């Protein structure tokens, strides 16, 4: 049993590290840390669908990319749209689409669910790709405004890191809190036994719909922040490649744990950065890691750590 003091000590150390990161870390390390933080929310929403809802999404980039595109189009075309409103706009659009597509998705499960998410993802991707006048197609969209937040310049990497961290931390907390709510419990009961949950009298489809809309909303927020982080968006934020990246992040960290996707996005960002610096074929190593993880550590890195204890 760990006592209260050690928790407080850990909390203080973590807070200090978070606050000092911009002044301690070199610029590119800070960039990577920011990317990890932003992607961790995206990975968390994927993990929520699988772990809480038992739903395997194979087209998760749709929401992430929609959030990115919606917010960027907002910043481009709505005069004076603030930083936070833009991010919120991205989340709301993705959440709304999550709700609409969710209405079709809730009736399916397993492979059929995964395939329909893939079909939706590909449809949205194709529209974004072909609708050049609005989305820029292959060329993507750049040079969009990066509004200040309460007079603080978002162009400074340190400020942007703090703001992203705060937004993401809040969203992650909400994701965690959801599992403690009665509705969250219903969703988890559906995963364990849908028939029984239905028999008790819960509206199974409505609960799944809420989960899907929520996952869409938070993915959209993550996508909007990612757009500001990159200062550029292209179809790569919404294609099947992004949908597989999130799968990798969640799996490598551990889909059964809250910290899994967060750790996973860290591993993903670092691995892709360092591997791609010395080989073009880094996806080969990604694939190998995938196979090894599924064979020997189906609960991810955290699964190994927890087993050792």
């Amino acid at each position, binding site marked *: 049993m760990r006592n209260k003091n050690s928790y407080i000590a850990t909390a203080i150390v973590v807070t200090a590290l978070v606050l000092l990161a911009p002044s301690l870390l070199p610029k590119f390390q800070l960039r990577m840390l920011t990317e990890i933080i932003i992607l961790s929310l995206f990975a968390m929403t994927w993990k929520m669908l699988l772990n809480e809802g038992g739903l395997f999404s194979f087209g998760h980039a749709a929401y992430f990319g929609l959030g990115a595109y919606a917010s960027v189009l907002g910043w481009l075309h709505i005069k004076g749209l603030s930083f936070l409103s833009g991010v919120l706009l991205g989340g709301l659009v993705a959440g709304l689409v999550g709700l609409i597509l969710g209405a079709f998705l809730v009736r399916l499960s*397993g492979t059929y669910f995964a395939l*329909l998410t*893939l079909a939706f993802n590909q449809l949205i991707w194709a529209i974004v790709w*072909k609708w050049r006048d609005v989305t820029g197609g292959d060329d993507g969209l750049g040079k969009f405004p990066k509004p200040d937040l309460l007079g603080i310049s978002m162009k400074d990497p340190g400020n942007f890191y703090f703001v992203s961290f705060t937004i993401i931390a809040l969203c992650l907390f909400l994701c965690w809190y959801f599992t403690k709510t009665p509705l969250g419990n219903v969703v988890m009961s559906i995963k364990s036994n849908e028939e029984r949950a239905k028999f008790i009298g819960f509206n199974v489809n409505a609960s799944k719909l809420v989960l899907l809309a929520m996952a869409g909303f938070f993915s959209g927020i993550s996508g909007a922040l990612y757009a500001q982080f990159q200062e550029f968006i292209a179809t790569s934020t919404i294609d099947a490649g992004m949908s597989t990246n999130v799968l990798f992040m969640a799996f490598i960290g551990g889909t059964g744990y809250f910290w899994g996707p967060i750790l996973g996005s860290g591993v993903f960002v670092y691995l892709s950065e360092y591997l791609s610096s010395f080989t073009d074929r880094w*996806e080969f190593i990604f*694939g190998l890691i995938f196979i090894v993880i599924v*064979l020997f550590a*189906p609960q991810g890195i955290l699964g190994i750590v927890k087993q050792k204890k």
Partner: protein
Amino acid sequence: MESMLSTFIIQGLHGLAYGMLLFLVSAGLTLVFGMMGVLNIAHASFYMLGAYFSYQMLKMVGNFWVGLIVCPLAVGCLGILMERFLLRRVHAGGHVQEFVITFGILFVVNEAVKWIWGTEPLPVPIPAALSGSVIVVGSVYPAYRLFILFFSLAVLGFLAYILMKTRLGITVRAAVSDRDMVSALGTNTPFVFMLVMGIGSWLAGLAGVIAGPFISTYPGMALEILVDCFVVTVTGGLGSLLGAVVASFIIGQLSSFGILFIPRFAIVFAFLLMAIVLIIKPSGLFGEKA
């Protein structure tokens, strides 16, 4: 008017040839799914391996027909190895793990292919005997595509014979409808799984070999056919061979005429069809369970 008609017929034949190719790949995918419940994403990379093996064979032996026999067998063996040493080990962990591991295999094979053969498209010449063209209703049509058509029809007949008339086929069909019962009745289902996986991969390899001179051999070919295969298997009904035949025909025509009339949106139609089928009738045209 006559030229219009012949354009239609030629375009229809193009669609038919591509559709038959799609059928060869999708048949394995749908059979494996029907039996094991696994959507084997790596299936597409077996198709690509078939094409690359055939290229290598052509370089070493110089004969297309040797490759047509040997390469699919090699790919089939790889499929058997994959089932025995990877899929079977995670079978108890559920479908998500099986799905994810086939995903990892797709990554590894795709990158390995780029490593070994480079990223440039490789030329595979059409075998000399089929390099000519045939006159079809007044238009010139490449003989090789007709070969694809008839060859695939022969394979389809062979498959139908095995499934409908042999003991193995009866076991496979029974296992598709109720795996546990077949196992309880004393069939060695893991062995049958391995065999079906082998046959499925063999089919994918076969499709890859004949696709080489038709679509050319390049690292993106796996992902390209994968998407169309998903559409075919979903539309036809996961697990249904008859469905795969019909849906391959539809998708082949759709892509052939789609490119002719609405090139910009041809890509959207396939996904739209897939989404609509999944929404209205998830079991597809001929699938039994959903």
